[in-house]
């Protein structure tokens, strides 16, 4: 539907007549009293449900603070995880280095023993 359809609706004789015919009507006398009588029969007065601007701003501040705190905690947790990973890697490298040294030492000890000490080669 095109936008100018609305313009087509404006100010035709029928529309002008409708506006004239649809003037607001007055309610019967005693209408307000009738409403208030029904209101008086209500159990309790209405409660202010809407929050004051101060309360709204405090709620907004609290929400923003908890979001910032959550982000900071998540960042801290991630940094700690990275540090733990680095420490584990360092310990693994150290263990490998120690093992390598021990193996090397063992190899040298074994090679340094005289060949005579070895049992004679039989079966020739």
């Amino acid at each position: 539907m095109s936008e100018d359809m609305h313009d087509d609706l404006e100010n035709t004789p029928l529309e002008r007549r409708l506006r004239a015919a649809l003037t607001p009507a007055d309610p019967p006398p005693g209408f307000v009293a009738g409403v208030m009588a029904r209101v008086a029969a209500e159990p309790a007065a209405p409660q202010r449900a809407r929050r004051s601007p101060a309360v709204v701003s405090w709620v907004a501040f609290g929400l923003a603070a908890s979001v910032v705190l959550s982000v900071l905690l998540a960042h801290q947790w991630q940094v700690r995880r990275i540090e733990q990973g680095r420490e584990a890697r360092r310990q693994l490298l150290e263990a490998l280095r120690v093992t390598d040294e021990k193996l090397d030492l063992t190899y040298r000890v074994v090679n340094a023993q005289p060949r005579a000490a070895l049992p004679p080669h039989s079966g020739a």
Partner: protein
Amino acid sequence: MSGDGECTHDDWLTRALGGERAAFAVLVRHHQRAVYSLALRMLSDRHAAEDLAQEVFLQLYRNLGAVSSESHLGFWLRKVTLHRAIDRLRREPRHEVAALSEAELPASEAAAGDPILDGRLRRLLGELPPVARAVVLLRYQEDLDPADIARTLRMPVNTVKSHLKRSLAQLRERLTSTAGALT
């Protein structure tokens, strides 16, 4: 707040929210004409319209905390009145054929223009389907634009425009078939 004469409508709303019934009565007095007129034109029955308008104000009293400002109050009242009227017409379709006769109209309504033609227009309006009737009332009685009508009746703007176009065509056709005027 010292003097009642200095109160704006928002002040009355705030006081009513605080539980002051006299302030609520001021709000009712201020909006009674708009709410009753909508109910009357929707239901075409004075007693049903009065009853519905009172129910709307009672619902307002119970839900006053949901209203944020005077302009919101006007919007809320129109919305609730029309939705309640549409619901009632769907439940009790007898209202749809019980259009007001010219004799039932108060003097203020038939004061200007052509009272016979105006009365016929109002009767033809009462023959429109409930939702289309609500759209026409918001447009020509409450002077709302299609976007505001769409918000009030919770429908797309294009649907509002379609209702208006179709209703005007229908009214024009029925009017010309009986009177030969307003082509």
